[in-house]
């Protein structure tokens, strides 16, 4: 057997079923007597519900029916945070367009939608508050009338930086905005709930990244013991964070399945997703950077606001974005004086939830555009100012100003590698020469360091309701000599059915094809907080290794008995146990001995058998920091405001790569989503809070012609903190494209006096910025 363990780019085990159209998504499940759900949703951003008229016939439920179900309430131990109460179905008020007011059930979705049109809801419209400034006005309408204002939380990292800032010779101030986005997995949310009397359980098939956590949510909502709930997350058509929280619609579906004692299914459609699910990344802020004449940043002063929407989500809360942004804004730079202030603000938009990398794209955006602004102020190349400020390899491990320990890496080498691949001098020459098509050329850089594998230490300081602890996995030898591994995380595109088998292969020397992964089922797997925050490969990879090692210890005396050698002489390779003098014995023989012919077992074997659960958490669990440099080259059309990406390189380091092909896929896919953030994706609302981008023809996802052939320059700096040196990579690619592309656009339009600070850089925004710059120049002229 060639090496198929850690480091091998073996093809994915999960591909075959998908390539034959045999994946099993929630929408593919059918049940006799199934009822489908359509929700009646609010047409208003802010209104009081005066009354609801039900149709004469048909199954319709409203808040009055769900009186026993408590509202969603997420707690976090942060000063200045007060939880919101989100009803499962709106009762007194609606707080965003698309909020569910009633649920209608019928034999098909079409019939359920027919029924929903017969439900009458009387509203008294209230003035909506949509942006941060409006929401914070003293006389602003309050969303939640039991609160004194529209603030969800205030989080500040205060520091005495004023004297240092004042003494600095260079001052740069910039304002930044990041548009609200929809995560837009191709499959929306999906759930099928049914009561199983044999098991005495509510059995829920749901597209959920964190099945065990979702079970906890249902236990609270339905007042049901966790043993009486089984969550099965089958194949999922993309998550990206969208399928990590507990949503009211899913709770309502489970409630109805119990109430009716019938299977009930709800499949979110695209219109629902782009209205009620328009829920990510709306962050704006102002950055003051104080630098020396060379461009060294002496002090950084940040003030930002998160437009969190109407409610605080469960379990991590709406304050999570600000916590994360404050911690990571300084990025890979040596910044020793830092102050950050934040407000998380409630508005009449859908509740914001974490999307791939949570607040890090906005944090990186603010930092990286500021670095370029400093470079302009001191008259240097942006890469020179970066090099001046980057933490060096010699400084590792580096304690950041926000208390994070950057465990390992060579950030300057990452920058050099990306720059060398892009050939900056050549582009500078092309930039200076006039082009036949009149387009302007620009080069932009963005860098980040990403906190992955965050664990008890990090979440513990935040006091979140459910924090990750020791990750556990179960490994067992089957009677015929293969391996089954059960894990509490859920695989939805990350390739974990392959990579976790590679970890087992690394430990046990068995072909990954002989390792079967069980995941996504609370009835079959150890508890886990799930697949989010780039944690699964770090934490669960360690757990699978630990379980396989313990299993090896149990197999060793049995193999020794079969080969008549000492247990310590037994090794594992080529899918067999090996002994002295070239002796080998197949795993099938070991399985036969234990399971089928235990009369032949030697005395003194461990009666616990060949089925073990073991756990893992890094001894120092403060996290492993992946890092990356993105460099983009663009051509900007000044007449149409369009942007073409001419070249794009990513120098990425996520420590030891279990399967480089899969890592590349994660980086490419994340970068593509980031290009969407940079140039295309924006949930637009009109002045009354009506969403305007409610089809995929209005909300533009990048397609094959928008994403260039991104060039990857991977390196591997193993983390000294984690098993095998693995760092997380799932989210990283999505962080840097917006600042890299905005910096490139600003570089292209520098002569025009344009400096955009708002993403996405749509043609409208680019043309408006050119127009404003022209006006400013004309105004400045005598």
């Amino acid at each position, binding site marked *: 057997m060639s090496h198929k363990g850690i480091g091998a780019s073996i*093809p*994915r085990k*999960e*591909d*075959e*079923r*998908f*390539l*034959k*159209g*045999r*994946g099993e*998504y929630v*929408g*593919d499940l*059918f049940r006799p007597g199934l009822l489908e759900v359509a929700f009646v949703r609010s047409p208003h951003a802010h209104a009081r519900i005066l009354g609801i008229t039900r149709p004469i016939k048909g199954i319709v439920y409203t808040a009055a029916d769900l009186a026993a179900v408590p509202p969603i309430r997420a707690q976090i131990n942060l000063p200045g945070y007060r939880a919101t109460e989100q009803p499962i179905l709106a009762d007194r008020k609606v707080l965003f367009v698309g909020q569910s007011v009633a649920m209608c059930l019928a034999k*098909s979705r*079409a019939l359920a939608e027919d029924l929903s049109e017969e439900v009458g809801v009387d509203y008294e419209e209230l003035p909506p508050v949509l942006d941060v400034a409006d929401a914070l006005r003293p006389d602003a309408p309050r969303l939640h009338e039991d609160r004194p204002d529209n603030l969800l939380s205030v989080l500040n990292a205060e520091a005495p930086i004023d004297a240092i800032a004042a003494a600095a010779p260079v001052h740069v101030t910039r304002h930044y905005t990041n548009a609200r986005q929809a995560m*837009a*997995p*191709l*499959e929306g949310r999906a759930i099928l709930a049914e009561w199983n009397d044999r098991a005495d359980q509510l059995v829920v098939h749901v597209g959920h990244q964190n099945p065990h956590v979702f079970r906890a949510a249902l236990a609270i909502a339905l007042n049901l013991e966790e043993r009486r709930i089984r969550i099965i997350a089958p*194949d*999922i*058509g*993309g*998550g*990206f964070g969208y399928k990590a929280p507990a949503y009211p619609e899913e709770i309502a579906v489970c409630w109805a399945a119990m109430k009716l004692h019938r299977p009930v299914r709800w499949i979110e*459609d*695209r*219109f629902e997703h782009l209205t009620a699910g328009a829920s990510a990344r709306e962050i704006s802020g102002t950055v003051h950077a104080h630098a020396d004449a060379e461009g060294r940043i002496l002090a950084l002063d940040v003030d930002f606001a998160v437009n969190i929407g109407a409610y605080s989500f469960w379990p991590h809360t709406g304050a999570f974005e600000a916590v994360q942004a404050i911690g990571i804004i300084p990025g890979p730079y040596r910044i020793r004086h830092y102050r950050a202030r934040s407000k998380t603000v409630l508005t009449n938009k859908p509740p914001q939830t974490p999307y791939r990398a949570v607040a890090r794209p906005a944090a990186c955006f603010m930092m990286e555009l500021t670095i370029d602004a400093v470079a302009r102020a001191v008259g240097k190349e942006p890469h020179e100012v970066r090099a001046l400020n980057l933490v060096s390899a010699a400084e590792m491990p580096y304690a950041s100003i926000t208390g994070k320990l950057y465990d390992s890496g060579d950030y300057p080498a990452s920058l050099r590698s990306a720059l060398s691949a892009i050939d900056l001098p050549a582009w500078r020459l092309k930039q200076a020469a006039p082009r036949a098509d009149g387009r302007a050329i620009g080069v932009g850089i963005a860098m980040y360091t990403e906190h992955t594998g965050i664990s008890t230490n990090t979440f513990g300081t935040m006091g979140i309701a459910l924090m990750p602890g020791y990750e556990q996995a179960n490994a067992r030898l089957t009677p015929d000599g293969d391996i089954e591994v059960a894990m509490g995380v859920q695989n*939805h*595109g*990350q*390739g974990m059915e392959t990579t976790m088998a590679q970890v087992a292969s690394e430990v046990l020397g068995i072909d990954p094809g002989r390792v079967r992964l069980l995941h996504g089922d609370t009835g079959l797997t150890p508890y886990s907080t799930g697949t989010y925050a780039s944690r699964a490969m770090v934490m669960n990879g360690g757990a699978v290794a630990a379980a396989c090692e313990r299993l090896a210890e149990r197999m060793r005396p049995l193999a020794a008995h079969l080969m008549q050698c000492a247990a310590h002489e037994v090794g594992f390779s080529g899918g067999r146990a090996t002994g002295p003098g070239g002796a080998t014995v197949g795993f099938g023989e070991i399985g036969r001995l234990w399971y089928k012919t235990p009369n032949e077992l030697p005395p003194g074997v461990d009666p616990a058998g060949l089925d073990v659960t073991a756990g893992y958490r890094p001894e120092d669990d403060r996290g492993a920091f992946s890092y990356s440099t993105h460099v983009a080259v663009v051509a900007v059309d000044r007449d149409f405001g369009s942007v073409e990406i001419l070249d794009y390189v990513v120098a990425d380091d996520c420590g030891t790569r279990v399967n480089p*092909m*899969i890592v*590349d*896929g994660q980086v*490419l*896919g*994340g*970068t*593509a*989503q980031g290009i969407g953030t940079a140039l295309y994706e924006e949930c637009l609302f009109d002045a009354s809070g009506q969403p305007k981008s409610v*089809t*995929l*023809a209005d909300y533009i*996802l990048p*397609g*094959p*012609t928008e*994403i260039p*052939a*991104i060039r990857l320059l991977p390196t591997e700096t193993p983390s000294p903190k984690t098993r095998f040196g693995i760092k997380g990579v799932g989210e990283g690619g999505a962080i840097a494209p917006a600042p890299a592309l905005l910096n490139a656009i600003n570089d292209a339009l520098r002569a025009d006096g344009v400096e955009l600070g708002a993403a996405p850089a749509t043609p409208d925004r680019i043309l408006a910025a050119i127009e404003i710059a022209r006006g400013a120049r004309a105004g400045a002229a005598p």
Partner: protein
Amino acid sequence: MPDIRLSVNGEAIEESAEARLTLADLLRERLHLTATHLGCEQGVCGACTVLVDGVPVRSCIRFAAACDGQAVQSLEGLEHDPVMEALRAAFTRHHALQCGYCTPGMLIMARDVVLRLPDADPARIRLEMSGNLCRCTGYLGIIEAIHAVILARRG
């Protein structure tokens, strides 16, 4: 009395079909052929692409009644198609899928590109595939996989 008669993956089908029944819902909900996925039901994302009389069609915005007398092929019906076999192998080799949700529509469209455009280069393939959205991969693997099949067929 059936409303429509059509062939699905070579099998004769007779179904009642209310006017609003889409081809996608006919395939998925009536015939339980679930390889055809619904990503937007607005005719944009391409996940529901099937062949109708050999031509790629978005089954989410094609009424079933409009397919009366036509031959429909979904991914299930192309399992043993030699081009599809080559595409499946290339998609795995080039890591052209992650969550798998867009994959059936991608494959049906890719097969059409391979058969229709034997000289297509990566830029042309991107243009031809621009009606199919993938949220996971960043498309590079998909484009490379299709190009590899085209090159292999060229010999």
